[in-house]
């Protein structure tokens, strides 16, 4: 009897231990590389909800955007497996997807409702129709302007203004004695900074980076027109030293009331209307990014920070669970519950813009309109062999565009003429494309 009891106790112990071990085997720790911005930081604060639901824990590696890009690129190209999830953008996703460096997200659950993702975002994060990264938030660019200064100038901002109107309004709003600049725009070198801005501006003047045979197009009159227009307007109404201004510098100027207009990422709307940070929070209006008269293409870009799974991870299933959680409508509701509707990640899901609570946010509709007006598969007036609006989705682009934007910034700073900058851009681009075997 004693022996039977002992055997029974032993087998019970073994089965309990085995069950516990099995449960532990399912729970894992995910390492996620991400950028430092408000939405991502908010997500880190809400991760307990994911852990409660799945048992998985999360380790965050937060880095500055450029450092993150270099870090995750090194890891994915070497199949390093340092990260289970990476935060990447629209530029990397199709390129990495084509190289099979990412796990395809083609088997997400029905509850996730992948059809609810905004079509422009889905297209930009796919390769040959397969989704490789799920958008956490999306953005375009639009005009943010001071309603009080516009009124004082005796002008009214149309919903969709032209560049010519913007230049006129900027001149009218400029008040050098009171340090008010009619317009603040990016001029800083870097493909993601001033390079992105001047590319979309050029698109709206009918210019393009390449013709269908991958020949650089900087020698075409549209580029000269766009660049001369930009430099002329900034000299009339821009802040001093605009050649070194990027997103943060212009945000700072706008928040301190030193810009009449600012054309930049839609995500900035939440910063400039936040009374804790902005001195002009109650007098900001929004409009679609401008186009040149007679040109249909607007100067707005499309970008998404998205979550992707590198092919080198051993935890793809748990990583998919996290991505489903973080980019779901349930997550949006969780943020709204904890932080309010103004702080939910925008620009990723159609249902957000159908939500009555979100429609009250002053910049919500213009953000959606801007995103919908951007098409990465048809970015320019004339046909092009590439995908991407503010970038060209080829691996060589980041290097080429950084060099080109340095030449443009030198022209903004008065170190060379626009014509010289364009000549150099043409030579740099053609040389690099030839070396890479495109021509």
């Amino acid at each position, binding site marked *: 009897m004693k022996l039977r009891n002992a055997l029974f106790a032993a087998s019970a112990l073994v089965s309990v231990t085995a069950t516990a071990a099995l449960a532990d085997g399912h729970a894992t720790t995910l*390492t996620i*590389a991400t*950028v*430092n*911005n*408000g939405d991502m*930081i908010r997500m*880190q*604060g809400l991760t307990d909800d994911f852990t409660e639901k799945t048992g998985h824990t999360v*380790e*965050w*590696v*937060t*880095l*500055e*955007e*450029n*450092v993150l890009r*270099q*870090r995750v690129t*090194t*890891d994915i190209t*070497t*199949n*390093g*497996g*340092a*990260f289970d999830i990476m935060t990447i953008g629209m530029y990397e996703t199709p390129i990495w997807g084509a190289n099979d460096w990412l796990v395809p997200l083609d088997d997400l659950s029905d509850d996730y409702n992948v059809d609810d993702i905004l079509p422009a975002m889905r297209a930009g994060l796919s390769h040959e129709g397969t989704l490789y990264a799920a958008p956490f938030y999306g953005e375009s660019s639009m005009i943010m302007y001071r309603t009080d200064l516009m009124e004082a100038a005796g002008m009214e901002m149309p919903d969709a203004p032209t560049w010519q109107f913007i230049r006129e309004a900027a001149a009218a709003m400029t008040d050098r004695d009171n340090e008010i600049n009619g317009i603040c725009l990016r001029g800083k070198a870097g493909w*993601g*900074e001033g390079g992105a801005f001047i590319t979309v501006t050029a698109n709206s003047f009918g210019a393009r980076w390449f013709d269908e045979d991958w020949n650089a197009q900087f020698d075409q009159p549209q580029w000269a027109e766009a660049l001369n227009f930009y430099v002329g307007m900034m000299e009339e109404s821009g802040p001093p030293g605009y050649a070194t201004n*990027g*997103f*943060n510098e212009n*945000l*700072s100027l706008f*928040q*301190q009331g*030193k810009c009449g207009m600012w054309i930049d*990422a839609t*995500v*900035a709307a939440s*910063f400039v209307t936040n009374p*804790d*940070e902005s*001195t002009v929070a109650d007098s900001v209006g929004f409009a679609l990014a401008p186009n040149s008269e007679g040109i249909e293409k607007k100067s707005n870009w499309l970008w998404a920070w998205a979550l992707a799974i590198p092919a080198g991870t051993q935890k793809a299933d748990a990583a998919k669970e996290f991505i489903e959680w973080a980019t779901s409508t349930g997550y949006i509701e969780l943020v709204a519950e904890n932080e309010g509707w103004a702080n939910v990640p925008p620009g990723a899901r159609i249902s957000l813009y159908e939500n009555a609570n979100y429609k009250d946010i002053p910049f919500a509709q213009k953000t959606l309109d801007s995103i919908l007006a951007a098409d990465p598969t048809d970015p320019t007036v004339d046909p092009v062999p590439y995908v991407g609006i503010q970038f060209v989705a080829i691996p060589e682009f980041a290097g080429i565009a950084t060099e080109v934007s340095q030449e443009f910034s030198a022209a903004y700073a008065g170190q060379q003429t626009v014509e010289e900058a364009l000549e150099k851009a043409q030579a740099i681009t053609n040389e690099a494309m030839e070396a890479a075997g495109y021509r």
Partner: protein
Amino acid sequence: MARAVTTQRKALNTAIAWAIGLLIFFPILWTILTSFKTEAQAIADPPVFLFFDWTLENYAVVQERSNYMRFLWNSVFIAGGSTILGIIIAVPAAWSMAFVPSKRTKDILLWMLSTKMLPAVGVLYPIYLIFIKLGILDSRLGLTVVLMLINLPIIVWMLYTYFKEIPGEILEAARMDGASLRNEILYVLTPMAIPGIASTLLLNFILAWNEAFWTLNLTAAQAAPLTAFIASYSSPEGLFFAKLSAASTMAIAPILILGWFSQKQLVRGLTFGAVK
């Protein structure tokens, strides 16, 4: 009269030295001050210097968001480990170069130093692949070895120049008294070179503490030191200067305190030995 001129010159030199010192220290002071401002005050134009509502909010946010102690421990381990390991390897190397030089010693010294001129990114991929193969990616041990190797030329050079100051006859006498090589280095050479070794230790600890390329590229969540901690608060889209300043202040505080207390030793070592 001569005395008056000397005093005037002294005062002038002191004033210039203070002005240069303040100029060099100003960015650090500004970072510390910004860490106590709100984000709006941090970007105010004209900037506010001392008269603002001081707040500890940024420190609270940084503490809440990041595991500071883990980053700090990683920094201490990696900077300390790489420096000690470097000294252990460099002392015998510098001894042989200083006291038993060969025809190629000068060339070897120059070659070692030339490796410091190689852009780090040029060897990122080979080292990354080695780390993957050895399974030491995102490990303190791996990073300790890499930082030791990177700083080794400087350690050897510094120790070599200190050792060259020590008369070889003293070591010879020790040898004649029957000291083994180990005892000669440990009990004769090392005590005489203590100021030099101490300043080499301190300087390399500071270099390893501040190293940002390898520490960012070879770590993820486990072995990331304070350089990664600072990088996590830098943002190209959003003004978080006050929080970034709080994180920077927390990252530099330990090394600043160490430098403050050991400045005499550091200056003495540098002026007596290597960099005369």
